[in-house]
């Protein structure tokens, strides 16, 4: 096992825009690190540079204490699981899993022992003599994992390994990968575009956008203390509602509505007072708005907005609201904009709500949980 250090890593293809820009951080020994971001953010490129499958334009990459910029992938002692699994179609499951050991010149008896052990852990023992084409998607994914764990490498690299599975299997495999990583204690980098995977699997999560690091933190901190507008909107589903607002003393003006901010907010965000009389961006998570008629309103500020759409999901009800303040774009290229130019706020309401489209809703907003961002830098105000 080893730590992985990236020090001002850059990747430029030809004369074009840099794919990775000055990436610096350390992944600790045994840590499960997730790279997440929208398509084209550079997360796979960063992973492939750690793997040695992409050259590093500048900067220094260390695995353990060794600089590996110019070390061949085969000599980096790291295993990779590909999105397509990349199983060798002409080899049986046993031969697939044994292949890295065979290449490393491990004695035959030991290969057999280690392949059988990996197969037992991954419940593949019955399928060892089958070819990959005869396996289901989930089994293929396990074989790819088997090929990685059998080597006992310094680190695992996983490039969206669950994206080809159906939703149910994905949830199951997600838990299995985490369990396996915890039991083996191998440093792992896991690339995904799915923020639910990122939040549920990673010890820490690296959020990337357009080749630049946005934030590295624990999943909980990403959610509660996002560094900027992009991270705030990217983490959490549905996305945080972001509006232009202005602060007047303790009064936050959001379109025609006014929210009086509690002292606790100014205590936790001392810089916020300096924004009095200025514009700022306010972020409201869908789970911090509810129907004022059915919720306990202590600690909540009340505003009103017309309901445009109600989606009852059983355990909760998504209510779309036409807030009359200017919407702020989080610049997530993958974000699906509902309703075209007419952006609506989304609230995750209690299923007891009686609201219907067309109603004017009285909303309870958890004022203590509001997020604030500078409109110029788009960074969080703390």
């Amino acid at each position, binding site marked *: 096992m080893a730590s992985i250090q990236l020090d001002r890593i850059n990747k430029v293809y030809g004369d074009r825009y840099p794919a990775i820009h000055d990436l610096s951080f350390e992944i600790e020994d045994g840590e499960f690190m997730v790279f997440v971001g929208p398509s084209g953010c550079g997360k796979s490129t960063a992973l492939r540079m750690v*793997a040695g*499958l992409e050259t590093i334009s500048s900067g220094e990459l260390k695995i353990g204490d060794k600089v590996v910029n110019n070390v061949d992938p*085969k000599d980096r002692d790291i295993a990779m699981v*590909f*999105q397509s699994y*990349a199983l*060798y179609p002409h080899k049986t499951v046993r031969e697939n899993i044994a292949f*890295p050991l065979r*290449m490393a010149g491990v004695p035959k008896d030991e290969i057999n022992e280690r392949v059988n052990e990996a197969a037992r852990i991954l419940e593949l023992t019955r399928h060892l003599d089958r070819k990959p084409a005869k396996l289901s998607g989930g089994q293929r994914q396990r074989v790819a994992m088997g*090929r990685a764990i059998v080597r006992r490498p310094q680190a695992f690299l996983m490039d969206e390994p669950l994206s080809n599975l159906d939703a149910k299997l994905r949830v199951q495999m997600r838990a299995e990968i985490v369990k396996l990583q915890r039991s083996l204690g191998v440093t792992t980098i896991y690339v995904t575009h799915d923020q639910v995977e990122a939040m549920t699997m990673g010890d820490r999560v690296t959020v990337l956008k357009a080749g630049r690091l946005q934030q590295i933190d624990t999943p909980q901190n990403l959610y509660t203390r996002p560094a900027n507008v992009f991270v705030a909107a990217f983490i959490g589903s549905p996305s945080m509602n972001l509006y232009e607002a202005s602060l007047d003393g303790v009064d936050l003006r959001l379109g025609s509505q006014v929210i009086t901010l509690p002292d606790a907010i100014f205590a936790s965000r001392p810089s916020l007072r300096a924004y009095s009389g200025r514009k700022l961006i306010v972020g409201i998570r869908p789970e911090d708005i509810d129907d004022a008629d059915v919720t306990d309103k202590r600690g909540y500020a009340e505003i009103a907005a017309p309901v445009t759409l109600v989606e009852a999901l059983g355990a909760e009800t998504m209510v779309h609201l036409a807030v009359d303040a200017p919407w702020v774009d989080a610049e997530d290229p993958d974000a699906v904009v509902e309703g075209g130019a007419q952006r609506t706020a989304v609230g995750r309401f209690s299923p007891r709500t009686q609201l219907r489209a067309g109603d004017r809703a009285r909303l309870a907003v958890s004022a203590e949980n509001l997020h604030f961002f500078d409109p110029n830098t788009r960074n969080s105000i703390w």
Partner: protein
Amino acid sequence: MADRAPHDFGKTVINAAALLLVLSYALPYVYLVSTSLKPAADVQQIPPSFFPDGVSLENFATVIGTAGLPNAFLNSAIVAILTTLLSLLIAVPAAYVSALYRRRITVLFLLFALVTRMVPAVSLGVPLFQIMKTLGLLDTTIGLVLAHTSTAVPLALLLMSAFFEGVPKELEEAARMDGCTRFGAFLHIILPLMPSGLAISALFSFIASWNEFLFALLLTSQNSKTAPIVIAEFNSVYGLAWGPMTAAAVLYSLPVILVTLLLQKQIVGGLTFGAVKG
């Protein structure tokens, strides 16, 4: 039942068209075989008969006794086998690199290979003669192998690069992560996935060399004459030995037919490669 009739009719028309097509390919060869089996007296009868009145192996006996022919067959086999091996040795790695590491230069490289296929063989004959003369390779097996390889490589290159393009790049990357060098990944993982591509490229290279006439005529005279030249010599100033000529041609075609039948599975698999997602 009523709606089956048009279907049957359509099927019959397709079968008839297929039969016609097969006949148009096969007829000259059937005529060659039938002529080779005619007694010497019947070969040049006027009007000619399509089928022999009686089967005779007289022409085959003459051919086998013809001085130089068995040796020419051996030369043909050596030249064709060496050409095939050398062509694949050059073309397969080159095709792999141009297919997997697609750059402007590799595209140009493939385009150039295609262009060389468009140059008429006859216009290459004279420079090739000069080159072989300078190298002292006239009338040698190696000289003819090199000449045949120069035309077989572009074909094998184009064929193999099409096969390699169907291989996901992740397979090579996975092999490299699993401890292979780039060449090791090619040898252990990629090449074993290519039996059809290799079979087709080998067969086409072999046939191209086995059947080649012009370069063999220009570059050989005594020692390394191949069978097509010796067969053509049955037509000489002393007359046209039509019967033995057809018998020799039939014998000469047998190895190719045999190899094709042996590799049938790989060839058919290869011809439909990429047609459906595997």
